[in-house]
């Protein structure tokens, strides 16, 4: 073997060692800081875990981009809800959503139930952000609502809680986020869009808007929030009702 081949072998070997030890270090770091998503063990878990960990480490607390008022879309699009909303929703809608309530339970000191009027009386945040669907389309709107962080403070969340589960009035439609997203100031229980009550097709009366992630994480018609330290207890244990369809839990990409 010539000198050059040996040198190349050495270079290749060193590169491989650097790569493997880099991965090992990353895995150790991920275990310590909770950078592993609940669906990490699925078929494509490796890519999803890398994305989640990389975005949490490199992009940290950065919020979703906020836009100017003149960038608000004049023609927003609402994906139709499937299956269509049922009679229970219709009755609440006919009464102007006066009886709509959001229950908060799980790892909290003071479980609570809030009406829309109560939610409106809490501190509000208004932000102009984009809804981006995994299919590729998007629109920009102005959203107003209560930061989820305010609700979590009000019910006195246990420090051990690691995730917030949020459920729609639609059967089997729920999702979850980690505390970094739950406490992020842009994560809001949205009550209004472009200055009017949130229209039903866009998730009214109340939708959890999470502008740092794709549209499918922003579930419509929220009725219940549950704080937990273990997502395995819910559904198939992968953190949302979406994994059954193959959609990843983390949708920051």
């Amino acid at each position, binding site marked *: 073997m010539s000198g050059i081949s040996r040198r190349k072998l050495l270079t290749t070997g060193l590169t491989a060692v650097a790569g493997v030890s880099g991965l090992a270090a990353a895995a150790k770091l991920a275990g310590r800081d909770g950078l592993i998503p609940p669906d990490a063990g699925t078929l494509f878990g490796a*890519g999803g875990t*890398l994305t989640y960990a990389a975005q949490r480490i490199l992009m940290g607390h950065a919020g979703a981009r906020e836009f100017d008022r003149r960038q608000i879309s004049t023609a927003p*699009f609402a994906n139709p809800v499937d299956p269509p909303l049922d009679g229970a929703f219709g009755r609440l809608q006919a009464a102007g959503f006066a009886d709509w309530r959001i229950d908060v339970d799980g790892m909290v000191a003071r479980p609570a139930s809030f009406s829309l009027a109560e939610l409106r009386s809490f501190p509000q945040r208004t932000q102009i952000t984009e809804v981006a669907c*995994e*299919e590729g*389309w998007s629109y920009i709107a102005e959203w107003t609502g209560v930061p989820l962080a305010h609700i979590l403070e009000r019910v006195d969340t246990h420090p051990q809680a690691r995730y917030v589960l949020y459920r729609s009035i639609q059967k089997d439609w729920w999702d979850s986020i980690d505390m970094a997203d739950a406490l992020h100031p842009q994560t809001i229980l949205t009550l209004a869009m472009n200055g009017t009550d949130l229209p039903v097709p866009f998730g009214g009366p109340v939708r959890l808007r999470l*502008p740092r992630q794709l549209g499918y994480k922003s579930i419509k018609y929220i009725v219940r929030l549950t704080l937990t330290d273990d997502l395995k207890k819910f559904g198939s244990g992968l953190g949302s009702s979406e994994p059954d*369809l193959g959609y*990843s839990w983390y949708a920051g990409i």
Partner: protein
Amino acid sequence: MVPRTPRTTGTRRPRHAALVRATHWLTALSFLALLVTGAEIVISHPRFYWGETGNVNMTPAFSLPIPSSRASVPTGYGYVLPDQNGWSRALHFEAAWLVVLTGLVYVIFGFVSGHFRRNLIPEPLERGPGRLAAAIAAHLRFTRPGREDDGAYNVVQRLTYLLVIFGLFPLVIWTGLAMSLTFEGAFPGAVILLGGRQSARTLHFFVSILLLGFLLVHVLMVYLAGFRRRVGAMITGRPVDAVETVVQAGEPR
């Protein structure tokens, strides 16, 4: 140390270094996965826009004349294709991680080992416009490369590979990342510079088409230059019939 003699055939230096071969096939594998899943994701919204936002209520810059996997997209076809976005997105990002990490290893190796300087930067003799024109003309006439070309790339190859490695790949990664909401939040300038998130998606599509074009021409050229020989060289490091040459006592080509 053996002096560097890139054009001399018959040295013990393989045509392709082991790391170049490994990263070449990892890239080929990831790129095929990205191509298939990318096409599948496009099917869920085969419309392209320019600017920040775009959806079915807005006028597209152009639409692909294909059916869609979403009933909400007007395509003119009377049917809707099955939704395959879940696994397609997951595999797309997993393959993207593989190609990015592989590319990083390759680029670091390329600089450290002198691979770029030795094999890809056109040699001083080739740099004149006359030489370049002659090489392009030879390509267009599909002149089969002779044995003397076994040891090195010609100038058209060198420039094309440099364009793909330092132009198209960085661009496809940038435009892909620009579609990530978390990335956009952390680095809004990287999206604004591309003309907005929908512009980034459109550019991502076009760069992918250019990369597909490269792949097709690349495979055609390998075919014209002797498929077995060249593919064998990219697997084993040496032209496949190097042994046969000895057996056939150097029969002229």
